[in-house]
């Protein structure tokens, strides 16, 4: 895929990521639908298959799941330099895309988080701050359970893959009750999937 991006377009992309940053309540993944709408449908800077591949690769890589964002920036940058056919000549543009997307996505939320966390820590004895933290604690624990539930559903697309559910339940019990290293479990899950057992 090859596209033409003017300097104005780069600023617009930065502006879009800046505006999404403060909307990412509940994690970066919450902004994925809007990125699809903007980058794929509206601007045609990113192909559908590049969008899907960015999501899948970010899932497979270690680290926070926001990594799909710099991957999309990378793809847009490479597209603007003539696509993957341009080889290494497109890399600087890919890196510009990475920088644009990361700065846009992180600058507003980072600034707000630091300011809010400091205010909260200075005022940690205040009734309101203590009530907020202890009141929200049960909700976010429930949210962890819900995230696990939704992730299991997302893996089981056909809706009848009981070995996948069994694997999730087994891992839940093992991590909850033992101190087994998490990387062993991930490797085991990867192998079971590789050989088509789950």
């Amino acid at each position, binding site marked *: 895929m090859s596209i033409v991006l003017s300097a104005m377009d780069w600023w617009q992309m930065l502006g879009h990521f800046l505006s999404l940053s403060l909307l990412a309540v509940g994690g970066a993944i919450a902004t994925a639908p809007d990125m699809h709408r903007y980058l794929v449908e509206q601007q045609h800077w990113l192909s559908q298959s590049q969008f899907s591949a960015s999501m899948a690769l970010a899932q497979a890589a270690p*680290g926070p799941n926001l990594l799909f964002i710099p991957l999309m920036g990378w793809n847009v940058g490479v597209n603007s330099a003539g696509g993957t056919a341009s080889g290494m000549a497109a890399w600087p543009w890919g890196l510009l895309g990475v920088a644009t997307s990361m700065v846009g996505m992180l600058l507003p939320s*980072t600034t707000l988080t630091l300011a809010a966390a400091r205010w909260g820590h200075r005022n940690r004895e205040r009734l309101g701050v203590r009530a907020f933290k202890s009141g929200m*604690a049960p909700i976010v624990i429930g949210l962890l359970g819900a995230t696990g539930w*939704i*992730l299991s559903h997302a893996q089981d697309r056909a809706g009848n893959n009981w070995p996948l559910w069994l694997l999730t339940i087994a891992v839940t019990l093992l991590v909850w009750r033992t101190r087994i290293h998490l990387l062993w479990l*991930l490797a085991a899950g990867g192998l079971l999937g590789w050989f088509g057992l789950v």
Partner: protein
Amino acid sequence: MSMRPSSKSDLFWSFSWLALQGFGGVLAVVQRVLVEEKQWLSREEFVEDWAVAQILPGPNVVNLSLILGDRYFGTSGALLAMAGMLFFPLLIVLAMVLLYSGVADQPQIQGALRGMGSVTAGLITATGFKLLPALKNNPIGQKLSWLFVAWGFVAIALLRIPLVWVLLSLGGLSCTLAYRALRQVRAPATGTRAKP
């Protein structure tokens, strides 16, 4: 807080190592390493910081790394912890784009991703279970806070209500109850102080 990072480089490398172990989500690793192994945080402190990181906009684990890094070493600590969380994973994911863009459609790769995804689901659920005891001393009482856990799960997992609304409604109710409970604890204390 019994322990803390010994230096800024300890902070950076600790978060880098955490991030590199987190396939499909870093939170389970953060809980395991920072609370259980390094003991930089108690379970209760972790739940409170996680609540703040989760509710503020932005990527949750990045918010958490900012909050913790800032507490230990100020602004530079916050930025170092965030850099640790992001730098090496970013390099790896970019290398993956360059090397493996052709193999994403292979059924084995798809299968491995599916298997690892199911493991991740278990890791996150287990982290939730491990944090439940932190609610023992919650001002609204253990029973009521467990009820809020259940309601939160039902609202998000089963009813699929958007997170913002759940935080505003259930979270608002829970915080109000906590506020009233904390005020009742504090009120008699100020009363005794007023006496000569």
